[in-house]
């Protein structure tokens, strides 16, 4: 059994206008020693899906169906105390925009020791030693343990976040757009660090991004999300070389390639649908150049093609 198995997960936001189907029937799994990339446009439900793994879905949002099995236990039916003990220890998370993710009036050392002291029975002195080691692990001098977040740059704050997330040796690490909003050089450094940690700590990772190149750097497996649904799952290399779903194809065409031949970039016409009233049939059909009648009527099921799992009617 895989480390994490998400099955038919449905998360709806209940608004005055109706239920927003932010995540609709999503399934994926992460094995030990595996890195899964979750890619899609803003608002496609990727963050909502992983927030559910931490059980961070708050009203008006609600998990209305499905299972999230982590290490044999269903996260959705856990007690509040069980999920609390899992957070930080079993599953750790690094958020987008580290600028605001650290408490501005607490030293970074305190913010690291806090999570260690919550989950492990060690003395304060030992926890500060651990905090220093964590900082060195992410490439920050241990003498900065008493510094405050505002004394660090954006990239360094994100390093501190990674130090916090890996402090208790979690069994799964979730990175929610960890390099978004940072300049490319800092992005590169952070991705190198993440790859190093992944290898050294043998850490399974779920990596959320809307940046294809970031996925290529880090992930073995990719799931492409569109409008609350996963449309294609494949190994990263295979997805780049032979995308099957028209949306995956369009996504890759919309991105510049440095190594390959020079080609024009193509944007995807139209905009993602509103999830209160998603299109009937395949949710991508209004923007799909290959759409035929069945796409407007019936929801596609997953089929295998070239080792890809694809939800598209064009595959027979």
């Amino acid at each position, binding site marked *: 059994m895989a480390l994490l198995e998400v099955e038919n997960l449905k998360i709806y936001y209940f608004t005055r206008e109706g239920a927003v189907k932010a995540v609709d029937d999503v399934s994926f799994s992460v094995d030990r020693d595996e890195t899964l990339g979750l890619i899609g446009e803003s608002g496609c439900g990727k963050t909502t899906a992983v927030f559910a793994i931490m059980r*961070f879905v708050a009203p008006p949002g609600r998990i209305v169906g499905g299972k999230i099995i982590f290490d044999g236990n269903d996260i959705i039916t856990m007690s509040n105390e069980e999920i609390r003990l899992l957070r930080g220890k079993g599953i*750790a998370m690094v958020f987008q*925009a580290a600028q605001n993710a650290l*408490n501005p*009036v*607490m030293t970074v050392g305190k913010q690291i020791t806090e999570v260690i002291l919550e989950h492990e029975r060690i003395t304060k002195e030992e926890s500060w030693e651990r905090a220093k080691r964590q900082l060195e692990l992410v490439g920050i001098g241990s003498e900065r343990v008493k510094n405050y977040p505002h004394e660090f740059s954006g990239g360094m704050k994100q390093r501190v976040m990674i130090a916090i997330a890996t402090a208790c040796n979690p069994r799964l690490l979730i990175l929610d757009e960890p390099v978004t909003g940072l300049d490319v050089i800092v992005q590169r450094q952070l991705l190198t660090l993440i790859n190093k940690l992944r290898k050294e700590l043998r850490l399974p990772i779920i990596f959320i991004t809307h940046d294809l190149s970031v996925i290529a750097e880090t992930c073995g497996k990719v799931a492409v999300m569109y409008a609350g649904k996963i449309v294609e799952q494949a190994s990263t290399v295979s997805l780049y070389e032979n995308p099957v779903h028209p949306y995956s194809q369009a996504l890759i065409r919309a991105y510049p390639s440095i190594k390959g031949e020079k080609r024009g970039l193509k944007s995807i016409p139209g905009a993602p649908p509103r999830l209160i009233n998603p299109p009937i049939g395949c949710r991508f059909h209004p923007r799909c150049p290959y759409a035929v009648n069945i796409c407007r009527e019936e929801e596609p099921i997953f089929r295998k093609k070239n080792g890809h799992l694809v939800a598209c009617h064009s595959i027979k």
Partner: protein
Amino acid sequence: MALKGFASFAIRKAIAAIITIFAIVCVNFLIFRMVPGDPIRMMFRDPRITAEQMQLVREKFGLDKPLWEQFNCYLTELFQGNLGISFWQKRPVLEVIADRIPQTLLLVVTALAIAVILGTILGAIAGWKTGTKIDSFILGISLTLYSVPTFCMGIIFLLIFAFQLAIFPLGGISTAASGLTGFGYWKDVLWHMFLPAISIVLWYGGEYVLLTRSSMQDASGQDYITTARAKGLKESAVLRNHALRNALLPVVTITGVNLAFAVAGIIEAETVFSWPGVGRLVYDAVMKRDYPLLQGTFLVFAVAVVLANLVVDLIYGYIDPRIKVGKSE
């Protein structure tokens, strides 16, 4: 190094405070010269006083001299701690004010301390549980209390608890000619203090609830709260160490400014309950057209506000690490 930085920060703030106080002294001086009417005529409303006698008094107070010289004289005397003579009490102004300060400190410090503690706790709860029934309940009550003027609440309390039910005294700080001493005397003072203190607590408590609630709401929506939860911290630790710690920063500011009232007194409450403090003194000085006394109380009030702000600035440099304390490199 850090201490040196803090010292230079403190010195800069102190110099700014001194300049502010000097400006206040100038304005304070000018305001009372611009008030219509002759202060000497105010002093003696007796038809038998002759013009010569009035002129003599005028010379004695230096009021015959040009404005510039008067100002010069005022400053010189001020530096020697002489705020003039009260028309009404015929005693040095400083002495009159100093007599009232202990009573005001007793009432205002006690009431404000209770208001701050109760207000922040209730406000924090309301802000943390925004949208719940307990939030609506706390918010409703504090909005109501905050919108009722202190004097109005005071009069209602007097009417009900002192007049109708007669369980509290109508005013003053102690029972006249009671002959009480020691513990009995202090019990009597506390009994007199109850109503004025409660009306201050309710009004200022409402203010603190509203303030803490909104800054708590702000803090609890921040990303670092999600981070704290992602660490698996207990909800109480998230609240205390992360949300409250940040939410209390604006509360400190308001508390500092309100502390100025500890010296200056709260005019409405002290007047309604005849509490012999500085606030009541201001009211009496206005009613008696006692210009030197009024000028003195204004100065004390202004200096108290400036000093309270100075203290807040200094504390802030300490509790909020983002405020760089005198880093010049």
